[in-house]
């Protein structure tokens, strides 16, 4: 029995080392680096920002959820840090008017009209290895198209991220990304009165809820012994 327990522990450590993004019920061996999003509430919830080199899913269900505010906030923060960002826009919905020119200069915008175009563009940019941050915006794409994304696609993306530590933020209308290191739900209930607010005031209206996070201490699935 002691030998079996030792083998199980050894196996769990081996799996944790090979697939660090999967939940193993084991505490993280090293502190996770983060990429600040520029949205205070989200950075506080994620202990600093998006996990660097990992995929984070932002679930923005319903209208007025505030996902566009998150994308714009992230873009401003990335530009302020002197970095650049790739935005794969699944429904060509990015609002150019609401961004300063110096921020736009640090954006590669890929305007897609279908989910398959967006996934292929994201695949190309992940293989490019030049972008530290990539946003895949699928909020406005039809649910039927999104459900037809093979689950192996997300697995392939995570394999690409292992070779190239690119921080990916996927914005979806419902839980979709298999193997995401972190899932956050955003809600804001934005109304007509919010259109008169200054853009800097809107992020304060956003409410975030952590749905799932890999590496978080949790009850192990089974115990040794």
């Amino acid at each position: 029995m002691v030998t079996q327990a030792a083998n199980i522990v050894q196996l769990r450590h081996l799996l944790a080392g090979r697939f660090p993004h999967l939940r193993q019920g084991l505490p993280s061996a090293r502190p996770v680096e983060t990429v600040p999003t520029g949205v205070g509430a989200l950075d506080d919830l994620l202990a600093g920002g998006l996990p660097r080199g990992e995929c984070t899913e932002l679930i923005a269900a319903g209208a007025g959820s505030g996902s566009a505010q998150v994308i714009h906030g992230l873009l401003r923060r990335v530009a302020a840090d002197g970095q650049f960002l790739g935005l794969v826009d699944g429904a060509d919905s990015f609002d150019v008017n609401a961004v300063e020119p110096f921020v736009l200069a640090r954006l590669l915008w890929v305007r897609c009209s279908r989910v398959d175009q967006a996934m292929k563009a994201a695949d190309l940019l992940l293989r490019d290895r030049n972008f530290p941050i990539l946003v895949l915006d699928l909020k406005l794409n039809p649910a039927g198209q999104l459900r037809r994304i093979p689950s192996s696609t997300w697995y392939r993306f995570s394999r690409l991220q292992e070779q190239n530590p690119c921080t990916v933020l996927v914005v979806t209308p419902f839980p979709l990304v298999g193997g995401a290191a972190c899932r956050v739900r955003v809600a804001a209930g934005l109304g007509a009165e919010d259109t008169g607010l200054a853009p800097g005031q809107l992020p304060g209206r956003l409410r975030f809820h952590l749905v799932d996070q890999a590496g978080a201490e949790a009850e192990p699935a089974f115990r040794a012994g």
Partner: protein
Amino acid sequence: MFAVLYLPQFPLQAALRHEPELWTGPVALVDPARTPSLVCGLTDPARQRGVSEGLTPTQAMARCGDVAIRHRSSAQEAAAHQAILQCAWGFSPHIEATAPGVFTLDLRGLACLSGNDPEGMVSWAAQVRAALECQHLRARIGVGPTPNLSRHAARWGAGIEIVSDAAAFIGSLPVAALEPSSDVAAVLQNWGIRNVGELLALRPEEVVDRLGLEALALFAAASIHVTRPLNLARPPECFDEAYEFEDAVETMEPLLFILRRFVDPLSHRLALSGLAAERLILRLRLDSGEVLERRLAIPRPTRVADILFRVLHTHLETLRTDSPVKALALTADPCRPEQKQLGLFEAALRDPQQFQETLARLTAWLGPERVGNPVRENTHRPDAFRMLPPDFENAPESSGPNPDSLPVPIRRFRPSVPAEVRTCGEDNAPVYLKCTVAQGKLKRVVGPWLVSGDWWQPCAWEREEWDAVAGEKVLRLVRKPDGWFVEGILD
């Protein structure tokens, strides 16, 4: 010292430049400019199988059933001529295009050949041969104290011939090296003159009395002291390759095969010239006679063969033609390569060439208006922008309008969604909306904001903007002269 590059069977070498594998088989070169077309060049296997110059193609095929017929092409010979000049330019600045397939180089002042060291000259000549072999051309090289001797050395030497003892060398050459007419050659043969040394042993004035003025030309050709100024040529800064298929091709693979054969020598020639390619111009001549021309801009000039080839490959993946392709030509527009030193703390692309390749693939697949860096137009018209290739290294520092002065970000619908709107009241406020995004009574509307611009131009515009709540959605409604539209949704 002078060096001569001699390319035997230059028209045949030019024709087979992009099919070097054919040299091992029987190939006959036919000149289509002559009537009837006759064989004017052939490979050694064809000669061994009984094919010879002067036969018609039918006669050649009767003697050798599997002989491949190729047509002489002035475009391919011109491209080969350019390639040789550009290669030679990398080894000496003084070049003369003496004759088709014959190039003379003046080696005066070359530091690598100072001291007339024979081993150094052999090494130098080997480098020149290797550079020409990168262009799929085979040359014999002769090095001597005069252009004349060097030319003889190149024509009658094994591969690389260095003339150290000019008198002994010229004396050992056969009389045919001086290219006498058939009559004079017959007379010399009757006299028992077998080599140039025996001819030079005769008294020139007595030979001239018997053979005429042609004898003077023979003695001049055999001279080891007379040198002449070179008619210098400068290699053109054009990098072209051309190829014509024997049969029109319908698939992409043969095109890619030949384009790869183009790109490698072009890249090598650009490197020898210290240049890079900023644009590729691909011309396809279809079987129907139509010529398709495509100009492919390379965002960051390069001479790396793989990148140039992938730009062509990406373009061909999306190309469709009505007829098969009969011939293709590729031109690389040269420019000085970029030299830029980045700052120590600037965020830079990790692999700029890889990024340009990714950008080229995305652009070829989605279109140039779908990939790039958005730049707002100088107008107040909402959502007015154009897409430019990204230039992250020259991105401006943080500056510009106060972010709080910008509008609240919305998610835009492109194109705008047409809507049926019912209005009421003095200000014609919308009260009911019907469109694909939402339908029903509007709970609340805010507005209007009247915006117009460019009134002094034909493209004058005017809009009436409203923010309307339909269900849980906050929509941006716009009334234009041609109707109501939903332009975006607050998210």
